[in-house]
């Protein structure tokens, strides 16, 4: 040695550094976090500055990601990718993050977590998600995941004075750390068998290897760990407790960005082996998880009385639908999952935004029955929530419908017709609990008892989500075309 190796490394580094503008957003956001910490430390009005600073920064990242979407490349010794799907995911994370900030500005004030740290944590979580989206190596996935997860543990427990928030944080942390352990262990076994952790080769190497049982067990542990992170049955137990206990604005980020990021990791990891026999080995596992999640989530959501828990079970069911797309393993499936992830994020952001508005300062008004008669008292809020519920239940022409549509088509193309039909049946069940809220709002007996203070920032966030849900539903073609280019 090998001066060639060193030279190679040096020239790669030079190329990577010169491509600075390709991965600029992630560096930018890291800088923003540091500046935000400084603002929080030294400025007395940090609580007023930070939200707008965060929104601006995140929107800038979102815009930049879309602008450079065709600028594909791999840098840093094959560790980090830019352009294509990475940028599409980054857009979902940063734009979604910006909406969460809008929803939180007034929420954190009323619910007793009026700390500047909230925004810094949010930025860190988004940074972690972006690291996952850019990962070209299992280690990068892991680092991004930890960056995001650890921030989430803190965000879940942000309301120190409330037992429910503490409980959520503790449960999330203990169970989450456990799942992370599985992922690392799995990555270790994969590395041993494959001799590399580069996403493009790791799976194919494992299946090409002679004695590959440890590697396969590694893949399974990886899958199990991520099933936990996406909240798929049977690793879903934490979801309802954490979604319910955490402050609603934190839940909004966990339920959308957090879940999308975990799916991003799965998509990136499995994409290189799409349609090969390699994937066929884990397809049954994915299919069973999908089946269990869809039915369990949909059926159990029916009995919930708390709206946050209901949305938690709905998110479990949705994880199931998206797993169908992965199990199908064809291009349709991946496009469908990406589309669905975007649709899912905006539908849930809107729904949680409204929940956060209706919620009172003392954590009341979270029961589904509190939505009784909302239609007459707050027609705009009720109409918006109905829109999100229709979209979530997959009623056309909103975004949720096409998400499910692509995924089911993908399953049929891959001869998983039974799974598609199961998905269809589960969606029927889910229609019941989504529409129950609509029915209650418009047809419920009695007067509405809630008196939310509808603030502009939240309303803007909710309306933007609603617009996206409609636009994605009415013009699904353009979104899909964008995705299918990569």
């Amino acid at each position, binding site marked *: *040695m*090998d001066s060639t190796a060193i030279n190679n490394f040096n020239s790669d580094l030079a190329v990577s550094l010169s491509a600075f503008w390709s991965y600029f957003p992630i560096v930018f956001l890291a800088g923003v976090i540091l500046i935000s910490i400084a603002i929080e430390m030294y400025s007395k009005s940090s609580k007023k500055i930070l939200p707008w600073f965060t929104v601006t920064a995140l929107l800038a990242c979102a815009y930049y990601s879309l602008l450079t979407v065709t600028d594909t490349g791999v840098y840093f010794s094959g560790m980090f990718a830019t352009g294509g799907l990475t940028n599409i995911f980054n857009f979902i994370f940063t734009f979604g993050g910006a909406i969460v900030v809008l929803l939180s500005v007034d929420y954190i004030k009323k619910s007793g977590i009026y700390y500047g740290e909230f925004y810094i944590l949010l930025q860190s979580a988004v940074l972690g998600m972006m690291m996952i989206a850019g990962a070209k190596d299992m280690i990068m996935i892991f680092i991004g995941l930890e960056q995001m997860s650890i921030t989430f543990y803190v965000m879940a427990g942000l309301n120190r004075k409330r037992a429910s928030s503490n409980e959520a944080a*503790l*449960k999330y942390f*203990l*169970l989450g750390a*456990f*799942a992370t352990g*599985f992922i690392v262990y799995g990555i270790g076994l994969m*590395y*041993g*068998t494959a*001799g*590399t952790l580069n996403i493009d080769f790791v799976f194919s190497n494992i299946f090409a290897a002679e*004695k590959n*049982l*440890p590697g*396969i*067990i590694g893949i*399974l*542990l990886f899958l199990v*760990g991520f099933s*936990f992170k996406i909240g798929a049955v*049977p*690793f879903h*137990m*934490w979801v*309802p*407790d954490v979604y319910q206990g955490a402050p609603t604005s934190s839940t909004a980020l966990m339920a959308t960005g957090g879940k999308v990021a975990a799916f991003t990791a799965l998509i990136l990891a499995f994409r290189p082996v799409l349609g090969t026999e390699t994937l066929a080995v884990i397809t049954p*596992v994915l299919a069973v998880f999908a089946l269990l999640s869809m039915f*369990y989530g949909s*059926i*159990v*959501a*029916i*009995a919930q009385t708390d709206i946050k828990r209901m949305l938690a079970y709905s998110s479990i069911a949705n994880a199931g639908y998206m797993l169908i797309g992965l199990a199908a393993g064809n291009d349709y499936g991946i496009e469908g999952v990406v589309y669905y992830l975007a649709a899912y994020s905006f539908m849930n952001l809107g729904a949680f935004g409204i929940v956060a508005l209706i919620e009172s300062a003392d954590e009341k008004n979270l029961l589904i029955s509190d939505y009784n008669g909302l239609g007459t008292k707050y027609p705009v809020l009720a109409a918006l929530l109905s829109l999100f519920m229709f979209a979530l239940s997959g*009623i*056309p022409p909103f975004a949720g*419908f*096409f998400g499910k*549509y692509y995924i*089911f*088509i993908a399953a*049929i*193309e891959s001869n998983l*017709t039974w799974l*598609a*039909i199961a998905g*269809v*049946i589960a969606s*029927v*069940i889910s*229609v*019941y609990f989504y529409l129950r809220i609509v*029915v209650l709002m418009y*047809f419920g007996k009695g007067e509405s008892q809630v008196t939310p203070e509808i603030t502009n920032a939240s309303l803007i966030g909710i309306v933007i989500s609603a617009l996206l849900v409609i636009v994605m539903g009415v*013009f*699904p*073609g353009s979104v*899909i075309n964008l995705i299918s280019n990569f």
Partner: protein
Amino acid sequence: MLVSVLAGFASGALAPLIRKYFSVQVTGLILAIIPASIFIYLSSLAGTALSGTPVIEKVNWVPALGINFEFYLDGLSLMMSMLISGIGTLIFLYSSSYLAKYEDTGKFFAYLSMFMAAMLGVVLSSNLMTLFIFWELTSLTSFLLIGFKHKYEKSRYSALQALLVTGTGGIAFLAGILILYSITGTYSIPELAGFKDVIARDELAIPAVILILLGAFTKSAQFPFHFWLPNAMEAPTPVSAYLHSATMVKAGIFLMARLNPYLSANFVWSEVITYTGLVTMIFAALISLKQNDLKKILAYTTVSVLGILTFLIGLNSDYSLKTLGVFLLAHSLYKAALFLTSGSVDYATGSRDPFKLGGLLKKMPATGTAALISAVSMIGILPAFGFIAKEMFYTSVTFNNLFMTTGFLTAVILTYAALMAGVKPFLGKFQSPKETSETPVLMWIGPGVLATLSLLFGLFPEIFAGGLIRDNYKALSGLSTSYILKLWHGVNFELILSLITILCGIGLYLLRNKIFNMKIPDIKFIKPSFYYDVLFNGVLTVSKLQTKFLQNGSLRYYFVIIILFSLGLPAFVFFTGEGYKNVYLGEIPGIYEIVLGIIVLISVIVAVSAKSRFLVIAILGVIGYMISLLYILLGAPDLAMTQFAVETLTVVLFVLVIYKLPKFLTISAVKHRIRDSLIAISSGVFITLLMISVYSVEMKSEMKEYFGDNSYILANGRNIVNVILVDFRALDTLGEITVLGIAAAGVFGLMKVLKKDSK
């Protein structure tokens, strides 16, 4: 055509606004302009549509996926869309008076307009995907309309039931379309013509056909999904007349008719349709005998007629397809009229019980006349249009005794029902719960127009309907015909059968009190609605039970489940993949290792059974130290040093934290401890086996080789770990040190906070 559909949605959106500034009557009149103009527009297209070339319109939506707004106006869609817009106009007029006393009428008109638009979308679409979307919208608006009187528990129950049944069917329909798409690659209905072979032979075609039929059957209330329709009668009467007799429930019939030329290539199609229709017609007719509510009687006879229509499609014969158009048209005209008149009777007398009504003709001459004419058409007496329909129906079934008998019995009961619903309240001795007078003009003009049409269509069938029926036949069969509609076919077998039918019907009518008081055992489990309730409540119960047992909030329990599944899956693969064959236990360890191992084991047992937190921590520290000693024995002193440091630090930190915590308050029950220990032991055993087997498989690593080869050459160090830390990965190490520094600063900050707290 897209404009017509959109106009409906737009007027729906505007309806509440219009209602804000105008009275109910005026709102209804204004909104009636939309269906009326759509009707006129469609009539203007009729000439072109019936000339043999359908009017086609295409607006791209998602062209990449073949999902577009494609509209197609031929005999079938023309007939349906004219019924929708024509009857729609009359319904708007009727509602504007009927709803005078209701609240929220703005919403009502909004739903009604949107329903009409969605329904037009269904019948005009020739793209299955957009057809499906409009289809679901009709279910949704129907749900809103049935639940309009939402203060009543029964209304809400019925609305939800209708939505769940038709919605489920709709989704089955979607699944069917998707499968059909996967075998044909098109959503366009006319393009299916090229795939008849595929549809006949592909094995996926059978599930596709069955799923599509499920959609059609639920929507058109076929047995065993019929129960939602009579319950849907909770809706205000104009809704029942419009949705649940004239239009929406015919969507399923429309779908079957539309797809018949293509899907009948598959043998399942016609068989399933024929027998479902046959069972439905007689079953629903029999139930209608026991009803004492005008609307319920009409509802069950509607189900029965829907069965007849379905059956006619299933026969798929030359003549049955001609009959279909005639029967559908006749039924829409007389049934909508009868629904409206029964609504008027309810409005005027406050009762819908035919046993308590009679002789209303004198008080309500216009309504009464319309009802009587419609009843005549329903019975099938000359010269009403219903007569032609029934004659043709008989001609279609004479070839088969089973079909003919069933058809005859159904017709008899329908005659009885027509007498009960259309004749009994108006003729005979005056009978009414309260003083009555004629309804406002807008309420009798609708049934009046419909009744007149029943007569005109009967008297001059060829002029009014001839072209329509011929083109309709062409749409259903793909063949042209020069069949001429006639009222009088001379004295033949059908006419005689028809006469006997009427006589038997009158006979039943005379025995009505006996029939009604007849005791029929009420067997719950033969009713399909019973299974609906069981399923519905079952799902709710399961849902609640799981919250109690599985999601009980206990963290330990969650751990149990997560460990079981996350290790169970790899363990399954490990054992089925015969990974245990790689387990090689190696040489017997030396005495020091054995001693250390025993100490670790004893410590573990003590730790598990300890009742104080301090003890547990201390013991865990002991285990850590023992492992460090093992490292020394195995020749890794550097690792041992690290482990010592870490163990010491953890114990100290734990003690600091636990100092503030109370003692264990509860110790779990013995049976839980046994369960937990079993899980713990088996996980431990599996992980150990996995570790050992991994050890025996040679692991590839570019890194190991690279560092082994180069650590001395490049960095002049023989301790590879050290070389990696300070040379190859020096930058990483610097990063780690920095992180540790920051963490230390953080701990220092926290301790300051703690001090402040304790002061």
